[in-house]
């Protein structure tokens, strides 16, 4: 056994321990490096992380009820929604007072909008109450409020308010999974078939995105192979054709597919001309899932070709030559030697296309009809039309988690280091 030598401390010329001196230099260069990336870091934090965190919060935030109806929320705590009795006078008094205050701040309709997401009718209930409460000035508040609108005498109204009185809610997530909580006993059950939509759309989005990814791979692989094989002079020109769609507006590309695929469109006309189909048999290729798949495969194709091409470019030609010279059939040489080497490109391209596909909403909205729309179309609807930002955020978070999960799965099976984005 060799005896480990005594620890010898080394010094630089000016007598500072070498370790310390080295650490100083390294710290300085680390600082410089950090300063150089700090603009990017700041940008990432404010343009990416903060909005995502905000979205996460939005999907569970329910503080609006407590903010606008503070007294009601406090007094309704002592009411048991299982009881088949209306809350007592104190709760009604608190409600009248809260609405009066909210009316002054023009906020009584906000709470109506919020609760209307959970149960239809709250929007008009609170709008009407805002007009009527100024006449209710003395007890009994219960009787007066019910007289102003009989829905205040419905126990269900109060159960909804009670259930959504806490500062946070899981309600948006339940809704995003087609579930609902019973207002009386709090049990969770799934929505009836004719009202459930989100799970179906999640499934369809994943299914169609997988199809699109697969199609871009089938079309993109031979194309990239050819690009990598031909002389650079020609491949440069061909690459321009691949990039050309990037320079065209997304809407123009989508609209041209409508002109091509519609029933009175170019392709149907051509098929009739050559006699493959007759006038009554015009194919429906757009305003359905087929339209979405065709248009999106075209739009996302470059995202598959570019990583594939860059990987294929780096595979030495000698590999396949060596295999053939050792007696392998050219097909075997391709399959056993060349193809495995393209795996990083396939992985990168597929992940890229798939992630882009599940977030698409303009193209599906224009060419998807009713069977080719995606979950992102519902997110867009809740963000810009229904203004139910909570539900929109919840769906967004679920989609985000799904992508992260997929990424981790990919890392586990293929390895993230093995991915080459170009």
């Amino acid at each position: 056994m060799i005896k480990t030598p005594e620890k010898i401390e080394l010094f630089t010329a000016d007598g500072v321990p070498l370790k310390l001196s080295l650490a100083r230099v390294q710290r300085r260069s680390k600082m410089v490096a950090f300063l150089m990336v700090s603009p990017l870091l700041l940008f990432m934090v404010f343009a990416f992380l903060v909005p995502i965190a905000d979205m996460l919060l939005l999907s569970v935030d329910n503080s609006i009820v407590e903010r606008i109806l503070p007294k009601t929320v406090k007094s309704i705590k002592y009411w048991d929604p299982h009881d088949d009795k209306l809350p007592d006078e104190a709760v009604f008094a608190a409600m009248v007072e809260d609405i009066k205050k909210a009316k002054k701040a023009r906020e009584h309709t906000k709470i109506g909008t919020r609760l209307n997401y959970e149960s239809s009718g709250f929007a008009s209930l609170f709008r009407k109450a805002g007009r009527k409460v100024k006449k209710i000035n003395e007890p009994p508040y219960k009787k007066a409020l019910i007289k102003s609108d009989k829905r205040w005498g419905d126990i269900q109204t109060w159960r909804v308010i009670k259930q959504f009185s806490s500062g946070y809610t899981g309600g948006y997530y339940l809704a995003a999974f087609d579930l609902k909580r019973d207002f009386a006993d709090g049990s969770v059950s799934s929505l009836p078939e004719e009202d459930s939509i989100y799970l179906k759309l999640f499934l369809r989005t994943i299914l169609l995105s997988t199809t699109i990814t697969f199609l871009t791979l089938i079309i993109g692989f031979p194309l990239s192979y050819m690009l990598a094989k031909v002389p650079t002079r020609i491949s440069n020109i061909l690459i321009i054709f691949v990039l050309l769609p990037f320079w065209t507006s997304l809407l123009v590309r989508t609209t041209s597919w409508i002109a091509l695929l519609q029933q009175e469109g170019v392709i149907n006309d051509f098929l009739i001309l050559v006699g493959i189909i007759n006038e009554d048999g015009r194919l429906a290729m757009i305003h359905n899932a087929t339209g979405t798949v065709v248009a999106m495969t075209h739009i996302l194709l470059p995202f598959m070709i570019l990583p594939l091409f860059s990987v294929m470019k780096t595979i030495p030609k000698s590999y396949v030559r060596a295999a053939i010279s050792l007696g392998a059939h050219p097909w075997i040489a391709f399959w056993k030697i060349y193809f495995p080497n393209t795996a990083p490109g396939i992985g990168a391209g597929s992940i890229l296309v798939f992630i882009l596909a599940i977030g698409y909403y303009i193209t599906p909205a224009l060419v998807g009809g009713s069977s080719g729309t995606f979950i992102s179309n519902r997110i867009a609807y809740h963000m810009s039309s229904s203004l139910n930002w909570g539900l929109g955020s919840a769906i967004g978070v679920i989609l985000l988690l799904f992508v992260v999960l997929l990424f981790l799965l990919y890392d586990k099976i293929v390895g993230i280091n093995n991915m080459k984005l170009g």
Partner: protein
Amino acid sequence: MYEGESMKTFVRVITISVVMTMASFLGQALAATELVVVSWGGAYTASQQNAYHAPYMKKNPGIKIINDDSAGSAVAKLRAMKQAGNTTWDLVDAVASDAMRLCDEGLVDEIDHNSALANGADGSTATEDFGDFIVSPCFVPQIVYSTAFGYRKDKVSRPMTSVCDVFDLKTFPGKRSLEKKPINNMEWALICDGVSPSKVYDVLGTDAGQKRALAKLDTIKSNVVWWTAGAQTPQLLADGEVVVGSTYNGRLFKAIEVDKQPIAMLWDWQVFDLDGWVVPSGTKNKAEVMKYLRFATDTQRLADQAKWISYGPTRASSAPLVGNHADLGIPMAPHMPTDPNNAKTTLLYNYEFWADNRDEIDQTFNAWLAK
């Protein structure tokens, strides 16, 4: 020599840029208050530019009106602006239901119609002149438009006269285009399923009524192309992709009279809706905007807008002043949705009903679509 030359050029460039910068600062100081007016773009914004903006800027050289075409996403954007604490819009064109929501959320200011707006040409007060069209305290009505059907004259065996012809696949085979939302479609389905028009919303408010409407829509579902933008139906009609389709009447007017397409109107049970102005709360030019608003919504201006687009003025006093189309020279009155010949059977968008039931029925409707 060369050095000196380039030095001279350099000095010249610097001088020019300094002068230009100063000029632009000066220009900004002199210019003008810019008012950002948000509207729908296309022919609609053009009609507002011709009828309101251009004459106003001519009268008030100190005002510059900038058009912004994002009215389609105005509600969401105003909400985001309010949250960010920076409202950059001065006036927004919104449909009545959105105006009510914006008012509900406190994103737009309430307006005292009688003091803020001009009296009618006949001397009536603004509230009398606009009448029931003032559906929200924040809303200044501008036009009445309708969602109605247009059909291909050359592709039907006889002219379509009833909205129920849309549901009649036997007499009128081919595709139809309908808007991808429950509003209007559910009403038409119930009327054609035999519900008395006065009872439509009572029925639609129940689960059974919604099922009934969807069952009626089911009979044509496989023949429907769903549209999301108003321009789609005229295009689909022009391409021969559909034989009949719903859209805003102004779009159909353009397809028929300007583009000379073989399309005819089916006015039966057209649904009236209102469009008008709202003032975002927090606008930095409130005083200027209110002056503009008084001008742009007076009797003559509202009547003028109809020279460029076939939407009806909301002031009673404007109706007699509606004249001819500015370019085509044809009388506009017969193309107005409110013309007695066109308005024999009409519905008015039920704001209260849809404010309450939109979330729920939309979910049911989309679940039905996805089936």
